[in-house]
């Protein structure tokens, strides 16, 4: 048998890979396709993986399917940017619009554990007002969630991931102390701090999902700086090594290399299970409930592709909003050169942050907010920025690249507005599974552009204040994908309710970044996991009342 995780499923024959030991296994409960399981979950990332764990721990029978391979980081991850592209979702997708977005590397993962396997581990809470940004701040759409309730779920996730964060977080309402202490700052982060202090705004060590002290089988972070190409030490607290081992221990089954292509429903309009391809064969897993957790592209793609005579526009789409309101986060940067050596390849890429412009409402000519963080691009990524974004090539490129160890940058995670024209649709082109290739259309609106301009101007001042020279703006990059199946209080203007339950198909749930009505100016993974924890609690109480 080949042990290539990308070719042959590993989670078979009653066992799953032990992510903490090379070649190791842990026992796994298995279900046959014909067994009607309580929950079939599509996707094992921040939404699906977390939910699978919680539901299994609450005693439900769970089968979680993922299109990606089941890695053991210690044996499968090389210290190599090129090779580790294997973590990305690189199936064909078509990107268009006025500002087409790049996909794959920094926003889509194809692994058990989803893109948390290669995320930058930045673990931030939403600003409380964002949950009611329409009523309180005058833009976007209100969430059907209350921030105080979310605060308790954030705390649960932070505890589960042993977030390493500052002793006191400078912004927002009181939060419990982070379970682990902040990491030491690298020079790139110190530049952010210097700039912030020069301009008189607050800054903080970034709360990160990588441990600063040993935890179980996780050694503390060794500052190898390759977080976004997969952590080969297990210091990173990804879904793969946190929620999923718990899920397996609680009796969940995880099926790797299992691509779900369609959700089936019965004559009453209730979901009956999922069609999935594994080892070259289409199979059908029966389930009492189906959860879609494929992130903001695969989720609407699956729902749209599950259209039937009863649901001609796709499943859960009576509002017509499935696939719409796709929101990226602006990811523009300002770069410069320091006389001092920076060597930003060391340490997690974003060790310092300022959320000043998330929590300040004056001095803005735009709605929404942004955080900005220090950066540590690896060579291929950095050359892509210099060539692709700055247009350099030839000797000029090589000369510029030689300054690698002196370059320093500040990059935003900026809130983009929901727009219905930004959307995911299906094309006629077919992929390797015979499924329609999605088309992703994206254009910034004027508010987005004003936010970007504001951030670039401010970061330029901050970088300038630290003595950096040769400062330039990287004006087009995006990160994170959200929206496309928003939650709300009204079936006409949302796809799911506050419990992530479809308005149209009562036993269909959506649990990932797709449900975000707005994105805020922080990385979404912590919020996705918090919503998953809340959804699990809601499902448990509804099940107890016989309301499923």
């Amino acid at each position, binding site marked *: 048998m080949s042990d290539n995780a990308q070719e042959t499923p590993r989670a078979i024959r009653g066992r799953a890979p032990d992510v903490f030991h090379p070649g190791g296994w842990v026992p796994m409960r298995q279900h046959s396709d014909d067994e009607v399981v309580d929950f079939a979950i599509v996707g094992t990332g921040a939404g699906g993986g977390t939910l699978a764990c919680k539901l299994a721990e609450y005693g439900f029978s769970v089968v979680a399917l993922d299109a990606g391979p089941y890695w053991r980081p210690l044996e499968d991850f090389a210290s190599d940017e090129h090779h580790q592209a294997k973590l990305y979702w690189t199936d064909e997708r078509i990107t268009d619009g006025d500002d087409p977005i790049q996909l794959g590397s920094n926003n889509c993962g194809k692994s058990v554990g989803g893109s948390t396997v290669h995320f930058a581990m930045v673990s931030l809470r939403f600003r409380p007002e964002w949950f009611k940004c329409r009523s309180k701040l005058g833009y976007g759409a209100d969430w059907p969630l209350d921030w105080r309730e979310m605060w308790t779920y954030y705390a649960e996730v932070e505890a589960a991931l*042993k977030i390493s964060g*500052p*002793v*006191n977080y*400078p912004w927002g309402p009181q939060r419990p102390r982070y*379970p*682990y*202490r*902040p990491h*030491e*700052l690298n020079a790139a982060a*110190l530049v952010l*701090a*210097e700039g*912030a*202090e020069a301009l008189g705004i607050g*800054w*903080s*060590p970034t709360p990160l999902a990588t441990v*600063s*002290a*040993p*935890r179980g089988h996780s*050694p*503390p972070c*060794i500052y190898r700086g390759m977080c976004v190409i997969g952590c080969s*030490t297990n*210091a990173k607290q990804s879904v793969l090594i946190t929620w999923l081992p718990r899920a397996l221990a609680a009796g969940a089954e995880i099926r790797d290399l299992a691509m779900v292509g369609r959700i089936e429903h019965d004559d009453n309009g209730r979901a009956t299970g999922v069609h999935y391809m594994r080892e070259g064969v289409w199979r059908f897993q029966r389930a009492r409930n189906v959860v879609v957790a494929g992130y903001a592209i695969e989720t609407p793609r699956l729902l749209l592709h599950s259209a039937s005579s009863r649901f001609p526009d796709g499943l859960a789409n009576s509002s017509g909003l499935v696939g719409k309101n796709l929101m990226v986060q602006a990811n523009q940067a300002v770069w410069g050169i320091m006389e001092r050596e920076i060597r930003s390849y060391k340490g997690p890429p974003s060790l310092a942050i300022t959320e000043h412009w998330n929590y300040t409402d004056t001095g803005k000519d735009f709605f929404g907010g942004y955080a900005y963080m220090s950066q540590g691009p690896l060579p291929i990524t950095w050359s892509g920025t210099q060539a692709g974004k700055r247009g350099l090539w030839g000797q000029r490129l090589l000369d510029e690249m030689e300054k690698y160890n002196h370059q320093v940058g500040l990059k935003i995670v900026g809130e983009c507005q929901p727009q219905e024209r930004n959307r995911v649709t299906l094309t006629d082109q077919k992929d390797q599974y015979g499924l329609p290739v999605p088309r992703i259309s994206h254009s910034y609106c004027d508010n987005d552009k004003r936010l970007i301009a504001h951030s670039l101007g401010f970061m330029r001042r901050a970088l300038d204040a630290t003595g950096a020279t040769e400062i330039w703006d990287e004006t087009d990059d995006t990160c994170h994908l959200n929206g496309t199946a928003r939650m709300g209080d009204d079936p006409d203007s949302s796809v799911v309710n506050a419990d992530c339950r479809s308005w149209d198909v009562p036993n269909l749930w959506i649990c990932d970044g797709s449900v975000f009505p707005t994105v805020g100016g922080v990385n979404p993974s912590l919020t996705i996991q918090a919503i998953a924890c809340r959804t699990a609690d809601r499902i448990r109480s509804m099940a107890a009342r016989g309301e499923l």
Partner: protein
Amino acid sequence: MTRPIPALDLAANLALAGVAALIVVRPRHVTQIAASPLLKRAIANRLAPAPAPPPSPLTKLRELRRLARRYAPTVQAKHRRLTRATGRKLNGSAALLAFSVLTDSAVEHYRGSFQNRAMYTPLIAAAVTLGASLFGLGDTRGQKHTVRDVVYGSAAATGFTGLGFHLYNILKRPGGWSWLNLFYAAPVGAPMALALAGLIGRGAERVRDTAPLDDATVLGMPAGRMLAAVTAAGLAGTVGEAGLLHFRGAYHDPAMLLPVTIPPLASAALAAAALRPGRTINRLARWWLRMTAVLGFAGVGFHAYGVSRNMGGWRNWSQNLLNGPPLPAPPSFTGLALAGLAALTLIEEAETDV
């Protein structure tokens, strides 16, 4: 960065630093204070036994017996042996502290790439202090040695200067006086270990120098109680340092609580013994100090295990010895505990002497 509530660490260290700096820089001044009638009276009042009963023939007899015993040659010899042995013990604990400082500053300043030439200073000072202390340990003669005395004095001075450097290193970083910099900038407490080695060493020399008929004194005060006070303060500071760094490690292992439970009790008991000696409190202090001494050695083992829990374990020593828990740090607890035990011996001797 938000500023933390001033840590126990700082308070203890600064207080100690102030006292000790005064001792080193202005010894005469301190002697004056110590010798001032006001203080003497205050201390005398505190320490004075209950008003003496009117002399009776019996008390007179007892007094005679005491004097006879005191001037008996065997007792004198025993007394001399004791001060000498205690002095050597104190030299020994100074040696242990200096060893801890030498290895710890070597590792940490190597980690800091010896960016600043001054970063070699503690290595030299600690090495010389170690040498002098080992010499003292082996030296069976009963009096102080000028070279040792000078070495100890400069070790203490170096320690306090180092504290200044380390504070500057913290304050100049973005965030200034903040948890982050207390965690990762130059540690506040580390240079104090060298200062303590110096102070205890000076104490050792004073004790050795005690004339056969006198009780040992330091700066005009009973040596045992003075040293006990310094050691108790030093232990408190070291506890602060361990507490801070173990907090940085999120107390991820319950064993990390040990240095913030046992040594504080030892420190408190020792301080109490310094203030008001007594059989019970002396014994209590002795036991806690013994446990602290053992803990200091065990700590090396714990830290070695901690290193193994880092990525690559001991095979990756070139990284993990620097980023893992510091192996040389815990023995300073042992050094201080041994000094405390020696101080207790002096206290008890002075007590039985009366």
